């Protein structure tokens, strides 16, 4: 029958109906269908095996390619993707005083930062961080939503806050160490120490000047990170180790510094000054024990605050009568006068069309050099300086260190303004020796009188005692060399005269009971910054001196900027000098030396002091002395003693 042709074995089976249906082939049993094409399964099996083998070989070949041939390259690529280079921060050195008390130190705190790309929910995370960091939630949310990969959230937070943030374990928030600079003594010596900026780099004062040695060198560390920024432990290598900064030991004495700032601050407030400076120095070594730079600050509870810079070296001013110490030293040294030389000193004298006059109206006097110095006579000084001459005066001013920077080399230090003789006018011989028409820093004037205290030898000032390394070993700074300016005899004569200034001259308020104090007052008008001439009613009152006079140990200067209404150096600066020097000598246990007759060939300043038994020697009998009338005391006038 014609069955419709169907594909497949069914159709084929039906195509041979007789063979299938009968099943009665003799002696052969049931027939396996498809036995006629007996090789096909074996062929298929073989073909499959071949295919499998080929695929297997291909896979193995690929494996070998990846693992053996390119394996190292892929592994390196992976490492490079994971590796991050971090800088290891170097610990900044501390600054300590001469006794080891810490003035400035760094503490390792933690900084919280965020990777806004990885922050999943800024609002939620901000709400969780706000109470911990004590920052407004809106600010945190804004920072977490910015389109950047790095945002600082909080700098240098205390450890408790950092631990709380880490416990929150928020995605995209991480911490890194950052150190913060602290001044444990508050504002003590703040003007001298200076500060650091946000990056921890010194920006002013000592921190700036010695930043290279204080900062150390940061190191480099490489480590691998996993997903989420976690560091893979065991993969961190320090390529370059961090070098910690060295600690700096200053010559300052914290106790004397505190006392100086305290007394100076009170004087600034009570004399309504706008600022002041006080420096105490060891006479023999030039090491600075205290350097106080204060400005009046109405917002501060004490009424004063630290000056923005170290005004002892940065502020220049016209020194006024303290310059007479230089003039007289030069005159004695060159021999143009001796201490017993006398001059006829009227109240005023004309010079090159101008008038030079003394502070006080007085009749014509016949004064010796100690008298001129004690009463700070400008006319008398003019006589001396005319004998001395312009070039010698200028030479000695330079020898004393005026017109050049001190060895401190502090940031912003000024060298002062000392015009060369070629620029001097006809009246300069009258004004410059009395300290007007020339500008100096407090430190320079201190160095002048320290030279006298040191027997005529200039000693360079220093603020740095040495450097302390990690092991705590101090390597002292070598002292810079000094030079001789005047002979010891000249210095002795000057010292005796300066003792007279304090005993019965303009500086009586600087006296310290039990000690002989040598010093000089100065009251100078402040020049007009915009036009020629001076600002009316604005003065700088100063006092500079040393003690004990027989064997000077400490030299100090006190300068008050614009004290009012009382402005004389002898009235505002000298009392401060007395108090801080008394404290310093007591603190350093400098006893009053045994009084001795030094045999100075200096006549006593006035007969009344001789009668009271002063140890300046017997009253002179060689020349008649006109005792000065008691009314000759510095009062209002334009050029001040």
């Amino acid at each position, binding site marked *: 029958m014609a069955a419709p042709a169907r594909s497949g074995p069914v159709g084929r089976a039906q195509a041979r109906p007789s063979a299938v249906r009968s099943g009665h082939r003799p*002696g052969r049993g049931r027939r396996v269908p498809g036995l006629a094409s007996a090789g096909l399964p074996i062929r298929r099996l073989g073909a499959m095996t071949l295919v499998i083998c080929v695929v297997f070989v291909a896979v193995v070949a690929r494996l070998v390619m990846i693992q053996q041939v390119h394996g190292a390259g892929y592994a390196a690529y992976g490492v490079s993707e994971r590796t991050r280079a971090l800088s290891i921060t170097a610990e900044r050195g501390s600054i300590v005083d001469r006794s080891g*008390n*810490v003035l400035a*130190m*760094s*503490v*390792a*705190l933690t900084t919280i930062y965020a990777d806004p790309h990885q922050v999943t929910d800024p609002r939620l995370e901000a709400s969780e961080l706000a109470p911990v960091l004590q920052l407004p939630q809106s600010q945190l949310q804004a920072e977490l939503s910015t389109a950047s990969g790095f945002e600082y959230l909080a700098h240098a937070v205390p*450890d408790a806050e950092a631990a709380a943030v880490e416990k929150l374990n928020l995605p995209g928030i991480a911490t890194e*160490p950052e150190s913060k600079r*602290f001044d*444990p*003594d*508050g504002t*003590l010596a703040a003007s001298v120490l200076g500060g650091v900026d946000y990056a921890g780099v010194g920006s002013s004062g000592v921190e700036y000047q010695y930043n290279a040695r204080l900062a150390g060198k940061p190191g480099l560390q490489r480590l691998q990170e996993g997903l989420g920024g976690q*560091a893979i*432990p*065991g993969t961190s290598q320090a390529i370059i180790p961090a070098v910690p900064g060295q600690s700096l030991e200053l010559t300052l004495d*914290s*106790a004397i*510094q*505190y*006392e100086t700032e*305290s*007394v100076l601050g*009170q004087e600034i407030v009570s004399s309504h000054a706008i600022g002041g400076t006080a420096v105490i120095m060891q006479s023999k070594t030039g090491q600075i024990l205290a350097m106080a730079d204060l400005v009046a600050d109405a917002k501060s509870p*004490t009424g004063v605050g630290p000056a923005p810079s170290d005004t002892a070296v940065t502020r220049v001013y016209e020194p006024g009568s303290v310059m007479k110490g230089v003039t007289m030293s030069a005159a004695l040294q060159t021999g143009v006068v001796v201490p017993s030389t006398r001059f006829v000193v009227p109240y005023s004298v004309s010079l090159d069309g101008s008038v030079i006059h003394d502070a006080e109206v007085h009749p014509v006097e016949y004064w010796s050099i100690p008298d001129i110095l004690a009463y700070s006579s400008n006319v008398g000084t003019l006589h001396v300086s005319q004998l001395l001459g312009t070039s010698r005066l200028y030479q000695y001013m330079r020898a004393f260190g005026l017109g050049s920077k001190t060895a401190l080399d502090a940031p912003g230090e000024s060298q002062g303004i000392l015009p060369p003789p070629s620029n001097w006018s006809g009246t300069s011989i009258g004004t410059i020796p009395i300290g007007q028409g020339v500008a100096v820093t407090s430190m320079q004037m201190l160095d002048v009188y320290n030279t006298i205290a040191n027997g005529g030898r200039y000693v360079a000032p220093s603020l740095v005692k040495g450097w302390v390394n990690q092991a705590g070993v101090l390597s002292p700074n070598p002292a810079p060399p000094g030079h001789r300016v005047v002979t010891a005899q000249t210095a002795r004569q000057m010292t005796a005269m300066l003792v007279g200034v304090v005993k019965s001259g303009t500086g009586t308020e600087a006296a*310290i*009971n*039990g*000690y*002989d104090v040598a010093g000089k007052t100065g009251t100078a008008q402040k020049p007009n910054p915009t036009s020629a001439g001076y600002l009316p009613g604005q003065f700088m009152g100063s006092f500079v001196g040393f003690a004990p006079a027989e064997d000077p140990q400490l030299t100090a200067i006190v300068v008050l900027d614009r004290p009012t209404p009382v402005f004389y150096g002898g009235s505002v600066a000298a009392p401060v000098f007395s*108090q*801080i020097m*008394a*404290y310093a000598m*007591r603190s350093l246990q400098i*006893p*009053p030396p*045994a*009084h*001795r007759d030094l045999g100075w060939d200096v006549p006593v300043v006035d007969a009344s002091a001789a009668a*009271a*038994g*002063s*140890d300046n020697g017997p009253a002179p009998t060689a020349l008649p002395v006109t005792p000065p009338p008691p009314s000759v005391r510095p009062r209002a006038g334009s050029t001040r003693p």
Partner: protein
Amino acid sequence: MTATQLPTRASVQSAALAAPRPVPRRQPRPTPLRVVAPGERTPQARLRRRRLVVFGLAALAVIGLFGLVAEHTVLAQQQFRLASLQGQAATEQARNQALQLQVAQLQSPSRIVSEARTKLGMVPPAGITYLVPGQKGAKVKGQATPTPTTILTTPSSTAASANSSAAAPGPTSPLSSPTSSAP
């Protein structure tokens, strides 16, 4: 009529089934004998030994791999521990620094002065007395009486007094007398 039929397959098969013929038994082949060498094992033993060796090697390989894995695990564990200890060390160092800062703050002169004044009620001394033996360097030969002594009183700094609330000076030392001889 019983005609002799030609034997057909079916007939032969049925006849065999009806009267089964005994099949001649085969003689078992004698097992060949030989002298056994000393230390030679039976096939069963050899097989067992072979199996044992294979098993042993496999076990060794497994143990070796396990050891490798264990070593890596322990390494990772110790690295984590090291990182945690390093973190602890850094924390303690930071804490040490913070304590040093605290010490420095406690030692600051302004704090000491304010504590002394407010909490302990201290005031600066009214005057300091110096005893200076042998004033004026007088050389006394064979003198029975002692050399004159000078008592000097130096007024102390009144730095704190202006700020202090206590206006009255504190008790002065019994030695400090207001008299001072002219130096």
